[in-house]
């Protein structure tokens, strides 16, 4: 058993002063090309995510949204914790299709319109899992991971036992590629955070460290930083 377990944050983020109280109790990620069980114990071992959702709800989400729901269901199986989801661009593919329809004087799809809000993924997850705790959706212009940690910290200090944060990006349409940064593939990563048991997260500011990590960079950091420790099962 490890008595002094800690993760060194690989990003330069502006974080709460008492950040060292934050503990990682578990995490899960999904990214293309890692679809077999032997790839990593904390990566979803299948190519087509969405197993946590009934078919009639699953059809409304893209793969990143489906993976996000699977991760939330696994990290909060009893629907007990506040959930915070961040994405810089959301479901940009479907949003652009809707804008194109409008520009062409066609009526946009009612389904796509209803799903074009940033909290749509959390809504689908909450319906599927009868989750009735706080839900929050964030877009932060590239600073999503930092914003997620702040929000988690707030919920934990308000008295919740744990918070699940999840950070995802869908596929980015080609039209947007020159205009913004993006991990290049659909991906999602979730962390269950507490003030109790788990790995301490150490924030040592390095000026050269990335300030705006993508979900892929968070996955890489977690794989690298947790390789020496077995995550405690909650």
């Amino acid at each position, binding site marked *: 058993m490890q008595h002094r377990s800690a993760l060194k944050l690989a990003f330069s983020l502006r974080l709460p002063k008492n950040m060292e109280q934050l503990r990682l109790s578990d995490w899960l990620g999904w990214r293309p090309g890692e679809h077999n069980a032997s790839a990593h114990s904390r990566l979803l071992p299948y190519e087509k995510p969405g197993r946590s959702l009934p078919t*009639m709800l699953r*059809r409304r989400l893209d793969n990143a949204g489906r993976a996000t729901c699977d991760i939330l269901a696994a990290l909060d199986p009893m629907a007990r914790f506040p959930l915070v989801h961040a994405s810089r661009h959301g479901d940009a593919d479907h949003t652009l299709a809707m804008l194109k329809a409008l520009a062409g004087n066609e009526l946009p799809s009612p389904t796509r319109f209803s799903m074009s809000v940033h909290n749509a993924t959390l809504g689908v997850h909450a319906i599927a899992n009868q989750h009735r705790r706080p839900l929050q959706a964030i877009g932060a212009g590239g600073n999503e991971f930092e914003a997620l940690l702040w929000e988690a910290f707030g919920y934990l200090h308000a008295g919740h036992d744990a918070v699940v944060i999840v950070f995802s990006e869908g596929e980015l349409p080609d039209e947007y590629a020159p205009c913004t940064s993006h991990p290049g593939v659909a991906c999602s990563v979730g962390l269950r955070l507490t003030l109790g048991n788990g790995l301490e997260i150490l924030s040592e500011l390095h000026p050269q460290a990335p300030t705006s990590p993508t979900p892929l960079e968070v996955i890489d950091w977690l794989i690298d930083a947790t390789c020496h420790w077995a995550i405690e099962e909650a």
Partner: protein
Amino acid sequence: MSETTPLSLDLKRMIIDTLELEDITPDDIDYHAPLFGEGLGLDSIDALELGLALQKRYGVKLDAEAEDTRRHFASLAALEALVEDRRAD
């Protein structure tokens, strides 16, 4: 009009494609079973999507507030009767 007309198959394909019903084939859609709630299990957003698809494909315009709209969406059989009656081609 029957379960095997080209129109009923066309409507089934339209439902599957526009509502993105994964893992469902035309054979899975019962001609007389309810489309909404029980049966196929469609919801209110699907009703709007289906209304738009009927308008685009067959020129059939429905009033979302009208009482008989609910009746037209009761089953595939009812939907086929509606399109036969009102299609604009």
